[in-house]
């Protein structure tokens, strides 16, 4: 995860200020979340799960995830998706780095011709969008998904990739 440390910092920083700018949380909420986030990122164990979004939704309970998803649908015209219903065993990127997906809570889950479908909890964070656009040559249809759906799918994805590695050995 350390290789994605800068991306984690940047994506969370931008997400936090986007949430403030779009009126979903207050600056005081973000301040409180930042403190917890910085403590998490400085610990080697919790870096993997360090997320401003999780802190705001689950720990501080100052952001209603349903409202955030509504906002993404209404203001950003994003489709909503539950990744639990998606097949992850044949992902569109063969050498996908699961730690990158975890770093920015995003999974490219499908590809139609040259267009990738990416589900993300961090669409409102410009560095995340730019990172994937650069990685996938810019042809992306974005979907919003819940944190629970994302975490379950990341776990599933990691299990699939581990099983594949074992199989190859």
């Amino acid at each position, binding site marked *: 995860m350390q290789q994605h440390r800068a991306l984690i910092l940047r994506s969370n920083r931008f997400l936090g200020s986007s949430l403030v700018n779009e009126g979903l949380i207050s600056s005081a909420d973000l301040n409180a979340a930042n403190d917890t986030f910085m403590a998490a990122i*400085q610990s080697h164990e919790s870096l993997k799960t360090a997320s401003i979004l999780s802190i705001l939704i689950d720990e501080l309970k100052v952001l209603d995830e349903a409202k955030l998803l509504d906002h993404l649908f209404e203001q950003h015209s994003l489709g909503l998706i539950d990744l639990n219903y998606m097949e992850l065993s044949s992902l569109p990127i063969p050498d996908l780095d699961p730690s990158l997906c975890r770093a920015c809570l995003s999974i490219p889950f499908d590809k139609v011709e040259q267009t990738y479908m990416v589900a993300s909890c961090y669409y409102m964070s410009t560095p995340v969008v730019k990172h994937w656009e650069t990685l996938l040559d810019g042809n992306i249809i974005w979907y919003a998904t819940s944190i629970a759906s994302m975490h379950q799918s990341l776990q599933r994805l990691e299990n699939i990739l581990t099983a594949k590695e074992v199989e190859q050995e």
Partner: protein
Amino acid sequence: MAHSVLILDDDADFNSLLTDIFKQADYVVRSLHDPFEAIEVFTNSDYDLVVTDHKMPGMVGSEFVAQIKQIKPQIPVIMVSGFLENDTVRELINNGVGGVFLKPLNIFSLLERTTELIDEAKRLKQNHELEDKHLSDGPAPGAEQDVNLGFSLRSFPGQSPQSVSFVKRLYRLRNFRSTLSLIGPPGTAFGLICDDIRSFYDREKEYFVYLSSSSFDTSKVLAQCEIAKQSGFERITCVLLDIEFMSDAQKCLAVSLAKCVDAFELIDQPLRTIFCVSNDLDTLFDEARINEDLYILMRTAEVKVPALRDCVANISILAQQIVRDIATQKKLTTVPRLAPAAEDFLAEQAWNHNYEQLHATLRYAMHQFSGDVISLDVLVTALQANMKVCSRDQLELMLAGVRLEYVQAISILSGDDSSAVAAFFGTDTTVIEAIVQ
């Protein structure tokens, strides 16, 4: 007072059903079947919300919404339809439709959304009225009108879009609770902007402390806080200027200050921090000129300060302010004015070093020449001379920073023994103390 709703649906039965639903919920309802008539009625009357069908003869709902949004964009609209493609729903939402309901209707959701939209529109209207009250009277640098508004626009007096947008954002964020970051190009008048921020509050209650790399340390902050406490100020705002040029220790101290922890834990009064930097935060972070803590902390509430060249209308007003200030300092009997050609010349310059360059140029002009009118020639000469002075000043500033860091490093190594430091540099203690001060 009951809210009013305009209903448009060519289907008489469904129109009647919608009318009943809203009437039962105590709304004043006007029902229409023809979109063209609805536009006319909407234009000439006041409604709190519009409910419209999508598929209608002569004009589809999206066209109707586009037209009424041009007339009164603030009035919320709900679309009710039998079937809509996802793309159409997205397009409608993008065009300002506040809710899309498909038949069969969920009456409770429809009424709930209606209440939300009307409340939201009322709140927005109140906010706009408040903003207009504060900002619509235009610039009046230093004038009494500004005092009446409760804040001054001295640092950004013009009405260019960038200038107005900056002032509005600054004003909106005036009640920041812990940190505010001002990110401006080199030469930005951070001091002047912070004076403007200070004027948003009661000067008797708000204490501002300005700290730079040469003056920021624990004892200084604590001493200032004590002065503020003794003088009865209710809140302290610490302005950290050019934080990217501070030492690593000072940057860590800045984090502690902003969080009110460690040495600053015992400060009684509420304390806030304003960070001033002359570069984009991502660039500063990439170049390791701010640490992770600062990077996150500074993003909580940030305001980008526009460059002087992007606010051309400000230049002439700021120039007159500067001339007036210098004339007061020099105790001149009359305040010189800028010749029209000189004003035009100022407006045409790039001002790469922003306010500081403008200030230095005018100071040079007024130092070198006397008279009631500052001519174009005088300004051209002053700007050329100032360009040379600018680079020398910058070099001296950089060298002074390096010297301070060097002295501080030796001081730490020698256990804060000023005689040992003085001996190391082959000078006396007064010189060392003057550098550190």
